[in-house]
């Protein structure tokens, strides 16, 4: 057992425990905060595995943006916030689907890699430079086409949500 192994296992256990609390707690804000812990621990796992850019992106986007957005949505729609007993859905199907998918994927991955060992010194660290080199060489076309996707999404969002200029004045 190296330090890396211990850290990965410990962070993984934190992430798993926090994830279980997310679905078992019946205070919705606490569920959101437990989600921060779970995602943060996952970022720690990435960091230990030398994928530093992925770790920071995880913190920025999931912990920073997604969870904050969810908490905002909760605050705007469910005030006052406190203990609520209507958070539970039927548990058995959820356990079956979630547990089945998780265990199935774990079995597939464990079977595929068995006990193959890849040392940390053998892999290129996943920093911004390495990612940038990949994106702007081999993946140049998909990367550029993604900007088209974002443009289409932008135009579409405006088309379906924004009233015409001047019209609002007429109505009010």
């Amino acid at each position: 057992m190296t330090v890396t192994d211990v850290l990965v296992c410990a962070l993984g256990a934190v992430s798993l425990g926090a994830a279980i609390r997310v679905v078992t707690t019946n205070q919705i804000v606490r569920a959101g905060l437990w989600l921060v812990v779970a995602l943060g621990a996952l970022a720690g796992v990435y960091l230990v595995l030398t994928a530093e850019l992925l770790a920071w992106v995880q913190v920025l986007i999931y912990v920073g943006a997604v969870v904050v957005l969810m908490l905002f949505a909760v605050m705007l729609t469910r005030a006052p916030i406190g203990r609520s007993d209507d958070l539970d859905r039927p548990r058995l199907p959820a356990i079956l689907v979630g547990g089945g998918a998780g265990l199935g994927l774990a079995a597939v991955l464990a079977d595929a890699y068995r006990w193959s060992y890849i040392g940390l010194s053998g892999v290129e660290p996943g920093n911004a430079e390495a990612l940038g080199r990949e994106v702007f060489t081999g993946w140049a076309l998909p990367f550029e086409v993604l900007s088209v996707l974002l443009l289409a999404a932008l135009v579409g969002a405006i088309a379906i949500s924004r009233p015409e200029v001047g019209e609002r004045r007429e109505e009010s």
Partner: protein
Amino acid sequence: MNDIQLPPIDYAALLPMLIVFGLACVGILAEAFVPRKHRFAVQATLTLAALIAGLVTVIINRDLEVTTIGGAVTIDGAGLFLQGIILVLGIVAFGLIAERRLERGGAFVANAAHAADSDGDKKQLNEAGATEIFPLTLFAIAGMMLFCVSGDLLTMFVALEVFSLPLYLMCGLARRRRLLSQESALKYFLLGAFASAFFLYGVALIYGYAGSVQLVAIKQSVLDSDKSGVLLAAGLALLAIGLLFKAAAVPFHVWTPDVYQGAPTPITALMAACVKAAAFGGLLRVFNVAFETTSWDWRPVITAVAMATMIVGSILAVTQTDIKRLLAYSSIANAGYLLVGVVSLGGAVGSSMFYLVAYGFSVLAAFGMVTLVRDADGEATHLSRWAGLGKGSPLFSAMFTIIMLGFAGIPLTSGFSSKFALFSSAWDANQSALVIVGVLSSVVLAFPYLKVVVLLWLNPPGDETPTVSVPGYLTRAVVGVGVLATIVLGVAPSWLLDMVNSAGTFLAK
């Protein structure tokens, strides 16, 4: 830091896609700067010009076989032919999208932000429709073109998103029955997002197996590898779910009737013709290039999916009472026939492409004619309203009869020649069970089509039979081209069959 070098790019090979993407961006600028009263004319001209220029460059490129831009794009005979199909069907569908004479302002809502049935929504009923529809159409078509020539799974995923997102949006822009339209857009979006997630998870697992997402590299690692096949099988299964969703195969078909019914009819036509061609282009490429050597693993599963799709699609089509839903279930059954072509691999690529052309033209004409039967509330799509239309509008009914007979596979129509070509190449590939199920299900499927024909000609007209609008020249051209193609490809299919067979197959090296 100066060691970043772009991979070599063959701009000529990418030109058709660059033209369509580029003019779509110009269309967005036009949306911003052209005064409103000229916008429609400018956008329609730009869109048509982009599609025609794309088609011309595809024809110029016809003998090209090249893998370019770091393996992201593989231009080959089959890929170019599929791009050509998408562009031709796109030009025909454009005729329906740009039609503004059937209804004041066209088939699309002016201002989608108004809540359905609100005062603002009622006020805008006669306003000119949104012109954003044109650049969005171009984005979708360019995405479909890229999807058919993707050389790796990530490019394929990006292309899938590029053509899906505009479609989700356009589904929600119908002028009439706003609530139904919005519901269909939301359903399509949520289920499509699910399917995309499956696709992406499949790509990740396949990367775990092969160490690459390039289709040819996956093929090579399947041949070389002694790793456990479980990862490959799981990845392939998830990938196939994503692709079969777009192709509307059972059991991933549940969105199809609702979306086809709720979307504006021109967009439904675009989905039934072009998206079908793109989805099957992608399926054919993935299975023929990357997974041909593992066909023992996936063939039984895809065979079962194909059988289920043919049977469920044709049986549920019998029970439909709405013409758009009927055509939706018929498109599901046709997806089943096309899956027969996927299962049969190499030899059936040509006849699958022939089927896509034949089906695409017929389905465009069918939806074009659905837009013509109207009453005061817009299109009258319930079948009971179609009873006895043959008395008042014999020409319309005769043309619809030809299309229905074509779908039913009566000889001397394209439906017969395309099914015959597809099933005979599947028979040659020893897929006799699939062929038998296919023939039996097409007998079942003939029943709803003939029911519509009987309804048109023999049933007495109801009290409130809707009128058949006099079509504008665009819809007239679409319907004319569709009916003509249905007859020509039935009477003299050999020239197109020669063309698809000489177009070559997918480049797998």
